[in-house]
Structures are given as C-alpha cells and as structure tokens.
C-alpha cells in the first residue's frame, strides 16, 4: 500500500492510461475529472477497487441542470485509506439524459440516483429500483430543471401558493 494520497491530477493521468478507449478530461478549475456517460461504471469500479485509489466512500451524488442544454451528475468521493477526496462529473445532453448507474458499486448511490432522477430527471441505466423518492410517485416533471414550470394543479389541488 502506498502511503501517499494521489492528487486529482495524478489520478486523472493514471486513469487516462488505464482507460484509453474512453475520452476522459480534466477540469483544473474545480478540480474534477469529466467522465463520458458510458464509462462511468467502469471508472467507478476501478476507483473503488484498485489499491492505489481505494475510493470506498461516496460522499454525495448530485444532479445538476447546467442551464446550457446539458445535465450533469457530480460524484464526490472519499478514501478512508488515504483520506483524500476526488470529484467526478458526467455531462449528458438534455434530450437524451442517460448514464450508467453506480448503485451497485457504492450503495449510497441507490437513493441519491433516485433523488437525482426525481428532481433533475436523468435516467440511470441498470438502477435496481428506478423510482421517484422525494416527490409523489405521480408527479409530472422534474422541479430542479431550470426550465421547469410549476403545474397549475396536482390531482385537483392548486399548486402555486
């Protein structure tokens, strides 16, 4: 076991070598690694299981409407072994917001992906229980989208107050 915690940039360089098929990019403003939607499960598996990363703790998974015809999912990871953090991002187009689920890799993601689907409205392929979680099951639309319009009525009840 290496004693040193890797910096996000070092993690990115190593990952880029491992996954030469996928196009990973590094955003140094945040800093975070931007992962293509179809690669996220493989990358996540590698980050959790490989000894040099050991990101065994998913702190948070957030769905974001970027406001420019894309939706994003942000993963904040933490490693109990090295005590370092890493941020991953997946950006998907608004017309076809599909990405692979990581609910089987970190069990935290199960409810968080349901929340992201519920509020922002991306589809997580391979999620074991893809339902709404906070809003009523028969609610229409995804409230945290920037172009969301509050419906007039919900089951005959007036919504705006």
């Amino acid at each position, binding site marked *: 076991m290496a004693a040193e915690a890797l910096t996000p940039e070092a993690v990115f360089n190593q990952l880029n070598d491992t996954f030469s098929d996928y196009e990973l990019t590094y955003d140094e*403003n945040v800093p975070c690694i931007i992962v293509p939607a179809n690669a996220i499960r493989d990358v996540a598996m590698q980050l959790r299981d490989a000894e040099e990363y050991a990101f065994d703790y998913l*702190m948070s998974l957030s769905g974001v409407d970027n406001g420019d015809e894309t939706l994003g999912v*942000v993963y904040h990871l933490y490693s109990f072994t090295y*005590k370092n953090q890493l941020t991953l991002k997946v950006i998907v187009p608004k017309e076809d917001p599909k990405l692979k689920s990581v609910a089987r890799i970190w069990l935290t993601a199960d409810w968080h992906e349901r929340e992201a689907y519920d509020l922002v409205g991306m589809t997580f392929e391979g999620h074991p229980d893809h339902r709404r979680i*906070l809003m009523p099951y028969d609610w229409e639309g995804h409230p945290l989208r920037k172009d969301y319009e509050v419906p007039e009525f919900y089951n005959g009840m007036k919504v705006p107050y």
Partner: protein
Amino acid sequence: MQEELLELREDIASGIDSGKLRTDEMVLNMGPQHPSTHGVLRLELVLDGEVVVKIIPHLGYLHRCFEKHAEAMTYPQVIPYCDRMDYLAAMNNDHGYALAVERLMDIQVPERVEYIRVIMAELQRIASHLVAIGTFGMDIGAFTPFLYCFRDREFILDIFEKTCGARLLYNYIWIGGLSHDVYDGFEKDVMQFIKAFRPTITEVNNLLNYNKVFIERCASIGVLPPDVGISFGCSGPMLRGSGVDFDLRRDDPYSIYDRFEWDVIVGDGSAGTLGDCWDRHMVRVKEMEESCKIIEQAIAGLPEGDISEAIPKRVRPLAGEIYTRVENPRGELGYYIISDGKGNPFRVKVRAPGFVNLSVIDAISRGCLVADLVAILGSIDIVLGEVDR
C-alpha cells in the same frame, strides 16, 4: 355447531397441508403516522408472521423543496431554510452552510466568532443527542429517561434563547459572523450547565443504558458491519457505532476543532455484537461528555473581538463550486454549492446524514421482529425534516 367447527378446522388444516390456503407473506404499512417513526415516514413491511422479510421505505411526506427554494433566494436568505432541515440541530446546519459560502468567497472569520460557533455547535450536539437518547428509550418502553433528557435540553435552549431570541430555529450563524454577540454572563451559564449536566449522564447510564432490560432489547439487534456501513455511506454515530474511527471534526478539520483535546468515541460491541443498536446508542451517550470537554476548553480560550467585522455587505461569490462537509450530530452534512457569480446560488445540494443513514434500514432489518424494527429505527436517529428536505 360443535361438529361444524371441527369440520371447518379440519378443512383449514387440510388446506394448509395441500397448499390450497395461502400462508405466505403479508404487507403491512408502518406509518406515516406512527410514533416510532419520529415524524412522517412510511415503511412498507413485507412480513412473514412477525418476521420482517423486506422493507420498502416511502419518503417525501415532509418534502419542502429546500433545494428549489435556495435557488430563488440570496445567499443569506437561505440560512433560515437550513435551520428548518434538521430542526433538532439547527446550529450545526447553519455552521455548515456558512462555512461553505465563506470558503467559496474566501472569507476569514474572526477568532471570537469561531469560538462562539464551536461552543454553540457542541451545545446543540448535546441537545440533539439528548433527544435521540430520550426518544430511543421511549421507543423501547422506558419513559422516565426521556423526561431527564428533556429537562437538561431545556437549559441549552434557554442559553440559545438568551443569546439570539429563538429556541429551535435560530438563524444565528451568519455568513462571515453571527447575528448577535453572546450576552453578559454567557460563559457562567454554560459552565453552570456543564456542571449540572455531567451527573445526568451518570443518571441516564444507571437508569437506562446499563439496565438489563434495555440491553436485552438492543444488544445484537440491527447489526451494521463496518464495510456495509461505509458502502452505504453511513456516517456519524451510526458508523462509529460499527467501530469505524471516523469523525470529520478530527479527520477533515474545519473551524477550530484541531485546537481542542478530545476523543473520538467508537463502538466496541461490549453488550453483544459490534455495530448493534446498543453500540450506536452508547456512542451518542459518550459523545456528550466529549462535547462537554470541547466546550470547557473553548470557554476558557474565548477571545475578545468584534463578531460582525467580517460579515460581507453583499454576498456575491465568484463563479465556482464547492463541496463542504461538517459533522452534524447525525453524521456528515455536506453542502454542494455552485455559484455562477450572481446574488443567488445556481444550485445547492444537501447531503443529509439522516437520508443516507436511513437507506441502510432494509439491509440491517431483514430477519428481525417487528418490535426490534422499532428499536433499529430509533437507533438510527432520523429527523424527517432533513431526510425529506
């Protein structure tokens, strides 16, 4: 009449044997209005007799669109909404949010503010744990300790009320500072409270925690193995009860927690199995003593100064994003804030510890009895206000 009954009984018996009469699982709703769900949570239980086969939690009864509201507010206006998420630990919620925005704006807050914040956060932690311990005892059938806990919590609420005028939802910790300085005699009140509070821990220990009936109800129930806890993202007393030595106040230090001498409490499985309900409960009990230690040191080191000098006139962070986490009484409270340079946040996402801790309930409750499920739910210590947000 007698013969008819006998015939009926034979029919039923033969029906069971031949498989004509179904004796399989039953679905039962626990909640949304059930006293042991600590709010409005509905658990759909699949039961085999008294044994829980599966749990499907249904959340959202208390969903108040915090994240949607936050996008329409200016940064300081979000703080009262933070109060209302985890209404038993409002100080800690505000602390986390203020910290996140300060890091985004690169604000250095005065020493005095940091000390007062830590004192308030730890007092709030004690108050929150007292509710958790009292209601957990009550779930299991011990009513008296609940009264002891609430009696002492009242002292803390009095101190808060004297400081900022509110007893539950404070809006006290502001971005860059505090809404009020502490009143004259605050230090004396806090020290007096701690002096009066320490015997209560012993009292509750004698009455509840080492009571044989209580231990029988909690030991080896709802066992959460450490690796499962980590994979589910559990945190706080829930994870420490499983023996994982992890506390953000020490491992990802924020504010001025690195200046104090205190211990991280972990469960040891001394009553039954490591990670059972009793371990989680005892972590909370022992943590109150550690909070007392921190408060004593903070009171001793409380510097003079102006509490409002770093409060910005306009809160308008540059475009950017940040994830900040603090140790709430229930675990890791994370704020993910994206700013686009405007006066209101572009996106605020809250990682609520109760939400994540609750997700483990199906995994640790399978195979237990319905009565034990009440104990497990009580030991997770959820506040539905933050689960549903």
